[in-house]
Every structure is written in C-alpha cells, then in structure tokens.
C-alpha cells in the first residue's frame, strides 16, 4: 500500500513529530507509515483521514502489485 501522508504533511508544514503528536502516536510510527514499512490498522487510517479531512482512499492507495493479486 502506498500513501500520500508525506505530501499532505508537507502541505501543512508539519514535521513528523507534529503529525505524531496530532495522532497521539510516536514519530517512528509516522516514519514507518510514510516510508511504507508499516500499513496502519483501519482505526488509525480513519484517524489519519479525519485529521486531513479526506477519505481514506484519497490518502492510502493500493500499489500496482496488490491490484493485480
């Protein structure tokens, strides 16, 4: 799964730590999600979507390989 977290965060001028504080998670978690090393659970994905005011599917997108599987 790929995501637009880094872009959305940059648009708002937030650091990873800022985003982590807003989501009440660690900066390492934000980093892991942004770099695709960790796919968040649905509840966390909803929290992220709520924070950015966008639907989940506008932030998290299936990668090409997942679409074909």
């Amino acid at each position, binding site marked *: 799964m790929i995501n637009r977290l880094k872009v959305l965060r940059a648009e708002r001028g937030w650091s990873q730590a800022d985003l982590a504080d807003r989501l009440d*998670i*660690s900066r*390492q978690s934000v980093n892991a999600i942004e770099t695709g090393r*960790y796919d968040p659970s649905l509840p966390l994905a909803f929290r992220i979507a709520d924070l950015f005011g966008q639907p989940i599917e506008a932030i998290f997108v299936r990668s090409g390989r997942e679409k074909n599987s």
Partner: protein
Amino acid sequence: MTRRMNPAKRRYTRRLAVSMAGYVITLFLAVTLFGRDGGVTGPLAWLLALLPGLCVASVFWAFGRLLVEETDEYQRMLLVKQSLVATGFTLTVATLWGFLEMFGLVPRVDVFYLVVLWYLGLGIGGCFTGSAGSCRGEGDAA
C-alpha cells in the same frame, strides 16, 4: 519536538524497577537467612527460595502489561516481534547448550540465566526490528 516516553512505557519502567528492587531485597534476605546457623527449613525455606524467582518472573508480567497497555500500534508490533526474536533466541541457545552439556562439552549452567538470555534476545530483536532506542537508527525526521 521530542516525544517523551509514553505512559505505557513509563509504567513498564516503574514496574521493572520495582521487580528488580524486590529481587535484590528478597535475594539478600534468602541468602542471609539460609546462611545462618541451622538455616531455614519447612515452608519458609520454600517461600524464601521462591521469592527472588517470583520477583524476576514479574518482569515478564510487566512486559505482558506493556503489550496490552501500549496504545501505539506500530510500537506494539515492534515489541511483539522483539519478544518473538528473544524467545526464539533463548530456546535455541538453551537447546544447543543442553546437548553440549549432555555430552560434557560445556559446564552446567543454572537455568535462571535464561532470563538474562531472553533480555539479551530482546536487545537483538530491537536491532532487527529497528525499535526506538535500538542499535539501528531511524532516519528522516523531516
């Protein structure tokens, strides 16, 4: 902005400190009382001998509570992975050592050292998973 230790990790650290303090106190008590003339016998002897071990065992309870209380799902996943590595490492070393010991190639070692090994495994697991404070740094704080 630096994020401080979260409440779950703070509680874990506090529980760890209490467990270790309990271990030192009960071990001192047991060694002292068993070392006296006549020593200790009966149920009190069993209790005294078990208390230090129970204090050490409470460390695993504290780790279990940390897994339950950690609200950061990514950190929780890292902890689970770490504990799996630690358990696998400990069981592997214990098995190998057991056979080496059976054939007289290595000396006998008290089994309570397995706890030390498990915690060493936790550190090794941290290196593999890239947990906070592990030997592998995490970049990109932008």
